[in-house]
């Protein structure tokens, strides 16, 4: 490469010719590249900004003083259907449960379930729905709402199935399910002590006729 030219003039000449031939694509490429970098950064900034704005909006929902205010503040978040929307709906569901408005709670949980696109978090919403149906004494819907997994939910699912069986009056099944939840070593809805009480109560009742 160095040996191809005799003098510097020849080198300069060669470079000039090369530049004449190639300058358009080079300048074009550079402009495109720079535009892409700035474009990406602007997009990234706007994403970050959007996230930050959503975080502020969500905080306002969580701190809302009345249910009505909460609904007003939450509706734009819910409309977007992201995690904040799901979170807002979940918090509204809690408020509805506290007010014993179970139908509304189910509605909010449905919204949250649709918005939450994560295989590990979605079952949490389903589990909560099943518990609200249980509170409504709608056992078939409670069964239907329960998730199938994943494994970390095994204790919770067994306990709720036990609650359903208990409500159906099938104490033998309830006992087995509560026991299964206790043996699973996984976290449960209530806690181990209360779950043991529920299990023993089922045992006491189903062995009553000896």
């Amino acid at each position, binding site marked *: 490469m160095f*040996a191809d030219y005799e003098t510097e003039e020849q080198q300069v000449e060669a470079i000039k010719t090369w530049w004449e031939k190639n300058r358009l694509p080079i300048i074009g490429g550079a402009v495109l590249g720079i535009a892409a970098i700035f474009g990406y950064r602007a997009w990234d900034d706007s994403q970050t900004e959007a996230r930050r704005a959503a975080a502020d909006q969500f905080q306002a929902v969580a701190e809302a003083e009345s249910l009505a205010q909460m609904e007003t503040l939450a509706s734009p978040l819910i409309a977007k259907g992201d995690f904040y929307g799901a979170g807002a709906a979940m918090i509204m569901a809690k408020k509805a449960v506290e007010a014993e408005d179970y139908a509304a709670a189910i509605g909010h949980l449905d919204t949250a379930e649709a918005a939450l696109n994560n295989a590990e978090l979605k079952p949490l919403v389903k589990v909560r729905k099943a518990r609200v149906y249980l509170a409504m004494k709608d056992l078939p819907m409670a069964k239907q709402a329960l998730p199938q997994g994943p494994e970390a939910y095994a204790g919770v699912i067994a306990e709720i199935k036990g609650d359903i069986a208990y409500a159906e009056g099938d104490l033998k099944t309830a006992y087995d399910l509560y026991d299964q939840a206790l043996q699973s070593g996984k976290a449960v809805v209530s806690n181990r002590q209360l779950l043991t009480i529920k299990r023993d109560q089922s045992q006491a009742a189903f062995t009553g006729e000896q």
Partner: protein
Amino acid sequence: MLTSLRDTIKGSRVIGIAFVVIIILAFASFGLSAYLSGGAGEAVAKVNGEEVDQAAAAREYQSQRARLQQMFGGQIPEQFSNTAIYTQAVQSVASRKVVDQLADSLGIGVSDSQLAESIRSTPAFQADGEFDKARYDAVLVANGLTAPGYEAGVRTDLRRIQLVGVLESSAFTTKAEKQLIAKLSGQQREVAWVKLSASALEVESPTEDEIAAHYEQNLSQYMEPEAVKVEYLRLKLADFEAKQAPTADEIEAHFDQTKDRYQTTERRSISHILLELDSDASDEVYEAKREALLALKSQLDSGADFAELAAANSQDVGSAEQGGSLGEFERGALPAAFDEVAFSIEAGVISDVVRTDSGVHLIKVDSIQAPVGKSFDEVRAEVEADLKRVNAEAAFAELSGQLANSAYENSDSLGSVADELNLSLQTSEFFSRSGGSDLAASQAVRAAAFADDVYLNGYNSELIEIEPNQDVVVIRLFEKRPESQKALGEVKDTVVAQLTAQAQTEALAELKSEALAALRESRESMASLAEGQWGELSRAIAKRQGANIDRVVVEAAFSAAAPADGATVYVEAGAPSQAYLVAVERVIDSEPTTAEIDSVVFGADSNVAIDAVNSAASIEINEAAIVKITQ
């Protein structure tokens, strides 16, 4: 030079290419080295393929160590190896990262106002309860952090907290759940019970045949463990003390050395007038200064005030302002020549001229605080005892050192050590690994006796401290006695006791099941059982959490079937040696109050979701890298 270089390169294609390659390598490796020295080696863990922050893991490790140290009062027990603690730290950093990644993928953000609020409310950055920017900067610098770096870290933390916070704050407990738990927790049961111990039962004594058969079948239970007899040289501090007989002079000398234990020391307030003088000044100069001081002294003798003269003439500026006063001293605190004079003249007298490295002085003792405390005669006995102890300790330390050395050097014999040090060689009784008397009461001695050096190789032991600095011994194997079978005669009592206990337990089990069947079939009542062998009849209303009655009864009562109205459910409980029969006569349902119902709140089910997220993640812990860091 550059021109010739250029020509060479232009002249040869090969050299030119080589030159370019060298330059590329130089730049490339320069870049690489920045990475190699900056990042500390391999990643300790990867979460879903992403490396965890090494510095965060190191910080977590330090704080876990600190926590353990606090928990165990300063010293971390050996079973917590550094590697184990580090692994634990890496695990918790990794599971935080799992949630961080999830928060990121869910599009969770932290607004500037949330970030500012969090930083402003951090106590470490506050002065007088207010956020202090200067303090913030100082704390970051002190921890080797930059503001953007720290703020990015806080944002990450806040995102994680937000995610978990949404799951937690939306958790609820339904009314139905609260009611059920409140009702069950408050339930009470009316119970009656009787109990019986196995040891209270009379059973037939085992026959000779049974005893022999049991012995034959359980020979391994009746072994005399292997034992050793050792010979030993033992030093006890108490023996050394008894041998001490210090003379009266020695006791008095010891009193003088340790006076301050019994007496306060003499203290003197001292003033001086100094005329400075180099230590290598000529005799003429010295004479001149001396004369000047003597002139001052004669003024003082004719009634002039020392303080005024000192203030006017002393070249020790510090003390001159105080009227020459240097303050209070014990003997030995001042330069030797000065000290000697200052502690020999009487109070109020002006000394002759004294020369020190600083110059020439006139010294005056303003006041003397005489020593107070007990006189030698009063504490003589105490001093003598102390001297004996000190001498004994010295002798003990010396001889135990000799013993340790000599026992090591003559590792094949203890007799020669005894001769050399003029000690008497003693022999112990037989003792086993697990216990013995006298010398063998010490666990350290037993351990040494059965250690390979002594037990297998037959060497002298090292110096064993039965009690450090008070009681030490060197042992040597004298005789081994292997494990042996104990004769039936020796262990007959034990065999009889075991067989009897076994028979009692069996009898109790039978009695219990018979009585339970009789109760269930209404052939017996609790009252009729109580009249028989089953002791006193107790009654109570059992509460689940109640401590008023036996837990065995409470647990049996609440895991038993609930009786129908007017019926009674009987259950058994207890251990093989202690049987209970419990009658559940009535279930008293509770009517929980609103407050009781409201107080039922379940543990957040959000833990389950976080568990699920963690188990779905791929966390690779690099154990080799952790071992490398912690070693």
